[in-house]
């Protein structure tokens, strides 16, 4: 346990001593703030139009502005996550191998699982830290709207982003453990993430295979969360995804001993 914490601390130190964390968090906040602004004004505009139409035809409008903003905003967040996670994980093992510090870790009384978990939890923490401030936009919006949307909806949305990001970070860490080249790690992670993203296209087919593909897509489960629904099957999906890739990373780190030529 002590070693796991030591590695976690070292990784966090690495993020925050170098400009990595600040650039990441800063960029992410600028982008999300911009998109939030656009989405909010668009949705409000839309709701006015609905209101006017409602008045014209005499029917009351039931357009839920906060829910629409949340759905759109979480949609944008997921896309940003797709771009940010490969960069976040590309150096996790690649850099360590290049510098030769992997040799230090692997000749210390630290198990592969401790190395992998320490690093994974650190990347997840940084991800959570860059995500967290965006909640302030949403909280602000919720406080200003009447009737106030349930907090559970917001919580479900953020749980969804964390699980989605956590899955892609696990995938990215695994890819990073396979190569010494950071650029290759980033590109492959991005391509692989995109691939499991668009498995969702199986949606159109009603055959059994289509349903399987649909279940395997990372983004389909995410959509439930953005609607405030926490589905057990989605939780199991993300949990298995993360466990699978953490396990594969452990095997990959372990195999570094054997495949070194």
């Amino acid at each position: 346990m002590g070693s796991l914490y030591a590695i976690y601390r070292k990784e966090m130190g690495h993020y925050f001593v170098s400009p990595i964390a600040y650039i990441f968090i800063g960029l992410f906040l600028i982008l999300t703030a911009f998109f939030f602004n656009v989405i909010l004004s668009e949705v409000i505009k839309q709701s006015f139009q609905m209101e006017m139409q409602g008045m014209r035809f005499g029917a009351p409008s039931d357009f839920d502005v906060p829910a629409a903003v949340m759905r759109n905003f979480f949609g944008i967040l997921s896309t940003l996550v797709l771009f940010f996670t490969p960069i976040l994980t590309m150096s996790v093992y690649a850099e360590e191998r290049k510098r030769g510090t992997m040799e230090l870790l692997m000749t210390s009384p630290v198990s592969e699982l401790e190395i992998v978990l320490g690093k994974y939890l650190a990347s997840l923490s940084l991800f959570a830290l860059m995500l967290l401030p965006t909640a302030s936009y949403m909280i602000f919006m919720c406080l200003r709207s009447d009737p106030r949307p349930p907090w559970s909806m917001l919580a479900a949305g953020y749980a969804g982003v964390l699980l989605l990001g956590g899955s892609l970070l696990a995938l990215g860490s695994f890819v990073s453990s396979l190569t010494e080249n950071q650029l290759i790690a980033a590109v492959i992670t991005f391509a692989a993430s995109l691939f499991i993203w668009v498995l969702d296209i199986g949606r159109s087919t009603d055959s059994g295979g289509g349903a399987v593909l649909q279940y395997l897509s990372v983004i389909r489960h995410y959509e439930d969360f953005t609607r405030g629904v926490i589905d057990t099957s989605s939780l199991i999906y993300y949990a298995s995804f993360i466990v699978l890739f953490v396990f594969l990373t452990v095997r990959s780190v372990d195999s570094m001993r054997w495949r070194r030529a």
Partner: protein
Amino acid sequence: MIEVQDLTKSYGSVTAVDHVSFTVNKGEILGFLGPNGAGKTTTMRILTGYMPATSGTARVAGFDVFRESMEVRRRIGYLPENPPLYPDMTVETYLDFVARIKNVPAERRPARIDDALRKTNLEDRRSELIKRLSRGYKQRVGIAQALVHDPDVIILDEPTVGLDPKQIIEVRNLIKGLAGNHTIILSTHILPEVSMTCDRVVIINKGKIAAVDTPQNLTSQLKGGQKIHIETEAPEKLLRDVLAQIPGASRVVIEPARAGSRQTVTVEAAQGNDIRSQVAAKIVEHGWPLFELHGVSLSLEDIFLELTTDDASHAQSSS
């Protein structure tokens, strides 16, 4: 402290380490000497648990390096060929990190870090970022890292590479100072380093052990026959005949010397024959001037070359 038996490591068809066996006693400094690519680094990596051997066993402090790897890793301090440093850390936070992953208890950590800093003369650099340090200082941080958990065994892969002469002397003294409390294996391809720091030498070439002995024994054992170096001025043919007639002289090589018409002559004699006085007498007898006469003992350098090259012609063509 360290027992290595029949250790073999192959990468596909290449055998990097070939049935290597040796032991290191507690408190001893063992030098691993060999040309680049001889299998020094591979052997060390197996000992530190970094990679498994293909066959054979290695035990450190009684623990098998493969099956009881964690126990071995707790007892080993290891400086790889390239010091494993995190450039963004300060010297002190780096050593703290290493102490943590080496399971040094929290209450002993500050004292251990101070001790490692003191031994490597890094006390005034403790809060400096590692990336700002020069090559020599980085190497010292690498050594401090190997000492910080006060391990029984210290394994240093080329500890003096890339250092300037003054730093090399410092590092050698540091290593000598560590012996006794720690068992040390160091590898090098620099010969004088071995004779200066090590108690025993393992000469390794192409994955095989060529010799294991103390530096002194290696020098005397391989001295074989005696070699005499002479500088004189004489007609070459006559000189050769005269010297070859001395009983015990086996080979006479005459080369023109740099200065004027002098010659440098090397006379080899079979073991146990000291022919120096006879050589001197012969030269004086013929009235030739004698500028220089001394016995040549084989240096470690010669031994090394003798052991690591199959035959002279092959060595010349391949190097």
